[in-house]
């Protein structure tokens, strides 16, 4: 088993080298690299399965130990990395893209290896090494097409954000190591969370891990970076890289004993903000990948809601809250990895097939790319938490957690539930609205551009991984009872509670999960019956004269594709509800006179945190720095005066004491 752990780290790391070594035969080289990533993923899955299905934690080497929590994240890493690698065969083929593809494979493999390493780490130093290998490899992936200035900007922003996060983690682990006397996680276990150490650790964890996870005010790097990377890389980033932030947050909070209730409350607040504003910003986007990226912010918010609940459970010693909160968060980590990478791969296929991912230039792709459309639709339903798909199951666990909290004595838990439940409901409703928009505008109706009109279906190597992800989404959605025991094991590993204490709540949630399965079956049966009924009726019904006609234009004689409802107009009504957080800029033309000339309306949605807060601050700092530099005359006399002044000042300080 421990060999498998090492394989899960080493094989992906070596995959890019294989691609480079076999450069003479690019097709074979790419397949070999892909095979290595998949083999690594299989090893990772094997390890995770053994741990999650009841096996003992696996210590592979000094500093490497896979427990339930690690295993949960290994599942997500394995699934997404393998799917992305296979997708890359068709999307970014070495045979036609050449050296750039080799580089992408190299960094991709390293990013995957870094993630596997940090997930398996049982020592802070190993964790940080894995963390940074992942972060840097990701930076290199984001800047793949660095000839384009906007991609350079996105890559730089990513790099700056991830480095600030890493620095916070330095401080975090330095503090923990200090208190524990060792950098081994095992030694840090059981440190008290109350007191100054605890609050420092928590604040640093929020900063460091929150930046990586894209928790709301710290999400600013995420949309540009996800949009800039090649799509299978975006899938990896959004699907699992972002989740390492969640993993870190869980790992660190899991180490400390008796987390204060304020931690849980803080996470609930931040998670709620992320969930609602993330999806609100997503609604306002018209670039498909940016839109998906903002949805990542939303889903991270949902996950953090679950984590907050589980932490509240731990501070109150309430195993039911721990189990339900953690199960919701943990399962949503895996689920989001599955459906978000599915959606990013779908976005890649759209770009591949139609040449653009600008929503208002797409349309009608369902007829040109039927398989992609079906798979994307499944992903869209899953991310909107619609039953019978997996997104519903994890959100439902979080709901159950809030409901359980509501039943407890004391007003504070009821207040959390009264906050969390509507937030979840609102986020779910908005997500459904947003994906109705995405699917409707991109795949349905008629084509809005030549590229969309002549779009072509993705090759099999791109469809197969998407199909794999979609079926995983469906499987979890149909059989939620199956996922509870592994989640309970992971929850026990995280909370260090007795597994027996979690068994009761798990069993109760399991009963409900059977109900969900049952309703899903009923839904399928009803749909089957209705399909049959409809088919019978249509077969016997009299044929209408023209079988295929244009859409009813409500009397307008010559409707064109450009007159369809666009993505922006679709979302406008909802986005305007959020005018207190989303400051849309609009350049509206003046139209006057009886026969106005052609004109255009232009809107853009700046990211409130990045464009309206951070960049102005950065610019102001830059101006100040320039002024400070001007003050520092490049005249040697002044420079020597500085030496003199330093001398005098230090002498004064030395003798004035």
């Amino acid at each position, binding site marked *: 088993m421990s060999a498998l752990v090492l394989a899960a780290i080493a094989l992906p790391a070596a995959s890019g080298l294989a691609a480079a070594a076999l450069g003479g035969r690019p097709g074979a080289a790419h397949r070999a690299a892909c095979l290595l990533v998949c083999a690594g993923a299989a090893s990772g899955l094997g390890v995770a399965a053994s741990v999650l299905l009841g096996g003992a934690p696996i210590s592979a080497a000094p500093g490497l130990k896979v427990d339930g929590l690690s295993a949960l994240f290994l599942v997500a890493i394995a699934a997404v990395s393998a799917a992305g690698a296979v997708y890359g065969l068709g999307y970014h083929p070495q045979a036609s893209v050449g050296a750039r593809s080799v580089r992408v494979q190299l960094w991709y493999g390293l990013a995957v290896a870094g993630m596997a390493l940090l997930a398996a780490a049982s020592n802070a130093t190993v964790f940080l090494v894995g963390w940074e290998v992942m972060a840097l490899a990701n930076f290199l992936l984001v800047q793949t097409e660095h000839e384009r200035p906007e991609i350079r900007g996105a890559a730089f922003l990513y790099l700056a954000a991830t480095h600030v996060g890493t620095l916070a983690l330095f401080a975090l682990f330095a503090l923990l190591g200090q208190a524990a006397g060792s950098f081994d996680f095992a030694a840090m276990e059981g440190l008290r969370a109350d007191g100054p150490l605890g609050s420092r650790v928590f604040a640093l964890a929020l900063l460091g891990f929150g930046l990586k996870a894209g928790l709301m005010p710290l999400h600013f790097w995420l949309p540009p970076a996800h949009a800039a990377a090649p799509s299978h890389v975006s899938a990896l980033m959004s699907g699992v890289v972002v989740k390492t932030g969640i993993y870190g947050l869980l790992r660190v909070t899991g180490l400390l004993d008796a987390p204060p209730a304020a931690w849980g409350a803080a996470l609930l607040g931040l998670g709620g903000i992320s969930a609602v504003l993330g999806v609100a910003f997503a609604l306002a986007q018209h670039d498909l990948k940016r839109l998906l990226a903002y949805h990542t912010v939303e889903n991270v918010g949902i996950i953090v809601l679950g984590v907050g609940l589980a932490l509240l459970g731990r501070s109150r010693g309430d195993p039911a809250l721990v189990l339900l909160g953690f199960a919701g968060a943990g399962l949503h980590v895996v689920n989001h990895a599955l459906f978000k990478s599915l959606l990013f791969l779908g976005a890649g296929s759209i770009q591949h097939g139609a040449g653009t991912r600008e929503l208002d230039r797409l349309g009608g792709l369902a007829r040109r790319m039927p398989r992609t459309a079906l798979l994307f639709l499944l992903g869209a339903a899953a991310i909107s938490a619609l039953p019978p798909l997996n997104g519903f199951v994890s959100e439902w666990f979080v709901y159950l957690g809030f409901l359980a909290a509501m039943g407890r004595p004391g007003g504070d838990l009821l207040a959390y539930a009264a906050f969390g439940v509507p937030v979840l409901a609102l986020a779910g409703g908005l997500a459904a609205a947003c994906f109705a928009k995405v699917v409707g505008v991109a795949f349905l109706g008629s084509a809005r551009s030549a590229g969309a009109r002549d779009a072509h279906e993705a090759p099999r190597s791109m469809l197969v991984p998407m199909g794999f992800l979609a079926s995983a989404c469906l499987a979890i959605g149909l059989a939620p009872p199956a996922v509870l025991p592994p989640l309970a094991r992971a929850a026990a590993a995280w909370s260090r509670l007795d597994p027996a204490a979690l068994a009761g709540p798990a069993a109760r949630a399991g009963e409900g999960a059977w109900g969900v399965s049952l309703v899903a079956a009923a839904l399928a049966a009803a749909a089957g019956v209705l399909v049959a009924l409809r088919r019978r009726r249509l077969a016997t019904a009299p044929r209408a004269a023209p079988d295929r006609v244009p859409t009813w234009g409500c009397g307008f004689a010559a409707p064109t594709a450009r007159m369809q409802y666009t993505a922006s107009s679709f979302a406008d009504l909802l986005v305007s509800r959020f005018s207190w957080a989303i400051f849309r800029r609009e350049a509206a033309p003046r139209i006057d006179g009886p026969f106005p000339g052609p004109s255009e309306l232009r809107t853009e949605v700046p990211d409130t945190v990045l464009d309206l807060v951070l960049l102005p601050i950065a610019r102001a700092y830059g101006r100040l720095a320039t002024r400070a530099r001007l003050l520092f005359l490049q005249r*040697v*006399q002044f420079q*020597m*005066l500085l030496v*003199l002044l330093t001398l005098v000042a230090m002498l004064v300080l030395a003798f004035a004491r």
Partner: protein
Amino acid sequence: MALPADLVFILVVVLDFFLLASSRLGAAIRAVAIQGALLAALPLLLAGEGHDLGHTILLAVGALALKSLLIPWMMFRAIREASIRREMEPIVGFVASMVLGGIGVALAFAFASRLPLPGGDAHPFLVPTSLSTVWTGLLLVVTRKKAVNQVLGFLVLENGVFVFGLLLSGFMPVMVEAGVLLDLFAAVFVMGIVMFHINREFSSLDTARLSALKD
């Protein structure tokens, strides 16, 4: 014995003031040369019981050769090459720099009277003279625009350090002699100035001309 030493110390400080007030480069270089010669005399004047005569003479001769002959000569060459005569507008005016120098000297004397001298047997003017000369040198270096003047300031600064070093010549003669090496620095400097001004004058550096200068 004490009287000539007193006189030398006072002259050194007076020369400091002169340098702060002088705009003519030639006069300033001469002043520095005279100061150097006075300093060269100091080891002989202060040599006491425990001093090694050989070292004392070496120090005096070395200081005289470098401080009052070689470097002033190179400085004169430099201003001739660059054909500059005077400092036109220093960053801090002559009057102001004199006032600052005066304050510095006063502070130096006040300061030195408070400092306990571990050796105990030093000339009472030695430390204040040293500190005020250091201060004058620093002022010159910082306030003057012409490179030649900065080098002069540096020379004055190191004259101050040299005076201080005389405190130690009793038990650490080698160290004080090494201090004179500081003058080598100034020698390099002077070459630097020459090159700097050739560059200014001809706006390009001619290697042939440089090799001619190096000799």
